[in-house]
């Protein structure tokens, strides 16, 4: 595809960059071919419409902010995860400690089968429904979030179907005794220190506020 001189001149007019010489040349071309004016009108209309379409599509950009709380590069980003890793480790330790002290309900039935969990023969769906129902009764499960995040989707063998990978989100309430966070002593060694529940709550709602 080639563009001729008329196309170039029309585009300059559309873009507002046409000089007086460009206009004179365009008028000269149009005097021989009135279709030039029609082409100019069409080009202006098309540019205005496309600009509106692009502006509409790009409006989403105004809602995307740079997550500057991560500013400082990969090191700081990693540090954030180290903080969370510390809390996760502390939570795991607290749960393990609670279990060792007999503070958490045992899940082992006398017969060796897991009590209150999946009896043999249940489908995973039924087991999950049972978990939700029991959890709600016990106050351990508060809700399942109404929307499910779909992480990936691809065509299935069945042409009418789609295979999806989803994430269901359940809100649970747990009671732990003796929550610890991971701190560092003056020698740079990791130490467990009792966690302040208020600080723990603050770190949940504002992750960067977690204690290192």
């Amino acid at each position: 595809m080639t563009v001729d001189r008329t196309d170039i001149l029309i585009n300059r007019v559309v873009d507002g960059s046409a000089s007086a010489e460009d206009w004179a040349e365009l008028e000269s071309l149009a005097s021989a071919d009135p279709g030039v004016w029609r082409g100019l009108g069409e080009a202006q209309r098309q540019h205005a419409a496309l600009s509106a379409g692009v502006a509409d599509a790009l409006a989403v950009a105004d809602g995307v902010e740079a997550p500057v709380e991560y500013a400082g590069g990969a090191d700081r980003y990693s540090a954030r995860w180290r903080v969370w890793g510390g809390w996760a480790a502390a939570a795991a330790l607290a749960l393990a400690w609670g279990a060792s002290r007999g503070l958490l309900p045992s899940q082992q039935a006398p017969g060796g089968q897991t009590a209150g969990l999946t009896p043999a023969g249940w489908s995973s769906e039924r087991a999950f429904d049972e978990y939700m129902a029991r959890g709600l009764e016990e106050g351990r499960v508060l809700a399942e979030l109404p929307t499910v995040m779909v992480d990936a989707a691809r065509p299935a063998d069945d042409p009418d179907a789609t295979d999806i990978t989803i994430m269901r989100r359940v809100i649970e309430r747990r009671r732990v005794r003796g929550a610890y966070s991971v701190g560092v002593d003056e020698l740079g060694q990791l130490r467990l220190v009792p966690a302040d529940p208020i600080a723990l709550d603050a770190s949940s709602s504002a992750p960067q506020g977690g204690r290192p």
Partner: protein
Amino acid sequence: MDRDVTSRDAAAAIAGDARALERLWRSHRRWAAAVALAHKPAGAELEDLLQDIAMTVVRKIGDLRDPASFTPWLRRIVINAARTAGRRRRTRLRLVGAATGGEGALDRHADGDAGDRPEALAEGRRLLDLAQRLHPDYREPLLLRCVRGMSHKQISGLLDLPVTTIETRIARARKMLREEVEFEAEARSLPVTRAVRSD
């Protein structure tokens, strides 16, 4: 998109100034979105792509050595993100009614809201769809020219091409777009079997 302001903010952002980084992103995100729009695969969502790009900018800004090269650096990030999105084909979908155990209906988020909009936008959206058929070498400057305030000179700087090349590519892109419009109109007026492209 003042070059001096960009370089100054980029230098401050590299040094760790979060506010400068915020300003930098806000003043560049529109054209970055236009570049993403020009290069992204059809299935990728622009908003997700921009989130990824913003995160990459924040994480990598410390690696940028020359503040004056922020603009081409950002463009490379955008294009890489678009290509990665093409490989992953990651889509964000929503299941409606899943929590109630009802039949899940897939609701794919479109780049734009499909709700009621002024009719004037319909033509623009149709043209934007048709523009996706153009080669990226033409589509990118064409869409950038539609971003308010982007001049031929700025596009030339961004794409590292002479202004005359940008001018020619935009003119050619518009001509190809006009032909796509005409082809579409012809295709609608003819039986499907006769609507065959000649080139």
